[in-house]
């Protein structure tokens, strides 16, 4: 459904990515919002928060969101047509998730993980390899949110995490469809399909 770039073959060299080093300015801008609220809570010398497990799990999910944003940022310029439109949309959505997560962590009196200056996103050969990478990453995000959701104390946080998880599951379906695989492989989505 999401078409491949007709020029994909000529770009295979470019797509042999050995670690994406550059994130778009948008990523930095959005994550800065999150870390702004984090620095407030992080500057205190109060004892560690009671909900450490919750904060650790949310930070793990946040790190995966940054990683996904890094991957989409790296591939958007290399795609065309529907694949480009999808990757661009999903990048925006991952950034929105990162902002929301940073807010949830700050509300739980935790310090949101900061976005790194670079992410080793591995090597991909051609569009197929890139979309395989996306499948792995979106699956990892779904699994991380499922780990976190039952540990959250606030019901509103559970609802927020669930709505993000489901959106990442949609990204997963589109990536699977692009690869010509079954886009709805599980009746109970676990992030392990």
């Amino acid at each position: 459904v999401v078409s491949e770039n007709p020029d994909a073959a000529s770009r295979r060299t470019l797509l042999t990515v050995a670690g994406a080093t550059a994130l778009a300015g948008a990523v930095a801008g959005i994550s800065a919002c999150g870390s702004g609220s984090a620095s407030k809570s992080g500057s205190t010398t109060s004892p560690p928060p009671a909900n450490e497990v919750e904060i650790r799990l949310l930070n793990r999910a946040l790190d995966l969101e940054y990683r996904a944003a890094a991957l989409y940022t790296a591939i958007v310029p290399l795609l065309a047509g529907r694949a480009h439109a999808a990757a661009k949309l999903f990048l925006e959505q991952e950034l929105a998730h990162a902002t929301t997560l940073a807010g949830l962590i700050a509300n739980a009196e935790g310090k949101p993980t900061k976005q790194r200056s670079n992410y080793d996103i591995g090597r991909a050969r051609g569009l197929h390899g890139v979309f395989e990478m996306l499948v792995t990453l979106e699956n990892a995000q779904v699994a991380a949110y499922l780990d976190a959701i039952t540990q959250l104390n606030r019901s509103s946080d559970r609802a927020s995490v669930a709505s993000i998880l489901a959106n990442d599951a949609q990204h997963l379906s589109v990536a699977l469809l692009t690869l010509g695989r079954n886009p709805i492989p599980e009746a109970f989505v676990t992030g392990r399909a």
Partner: protein
Amino acid sequence: MHSDEHAATRRQLICRTIKLGALAGAGSLASVASAEAAAPPSDAELLLPILGTELLAIYSYRAILHSALMSESAQRLAARCFAQEHAHIGAFKAALEQLGGTPPLPLKTVSAADAVLAAHHIPNRLAHLRTERDCLTILVRVENVLANVYHTAISQLTDPRLIELSAQVLACEAQHATVLNLTLHPHDIDRAVPSSYVE
């Protein structure tokens, strides 16, 4: 029907009590009323709308698959979704029975299913299916209602296993909506994944 009448009577009583309390300025009546009104639903109560909406989905998928109005690929996709809805209903029916609840009965007629679609503010009717587009539009709308029902339940359920199960199924319903939308509008990724948050 009997329980609906009972619920209406109880709601009326609570409303009357709140009004009386406010008029009299007496705290006791008002606090009784607010305690009743604020009582959170039990997990068993929260599973009822989930099962009711899943039964609507099952009925809709079955009717649409039997209509033979869709292309082979759309038919194949709908059959996959239908099988997954069956798995969902099995899991939540078992969960409700474990909690001592009684699952709602399956929908039996097109008019009954259409009445439930109307109750969910879905304008399309199974009785008026003419094209593949009609079929996919109803399915997308039912999937969106399902996602909303699960999302609402997740913030209120107390059993962690049910919370996790609901999150897994919410993700599945969101995927159904995406792939059905892409079948309906193959070039429109914005319609297929319209928001960063599925609610």
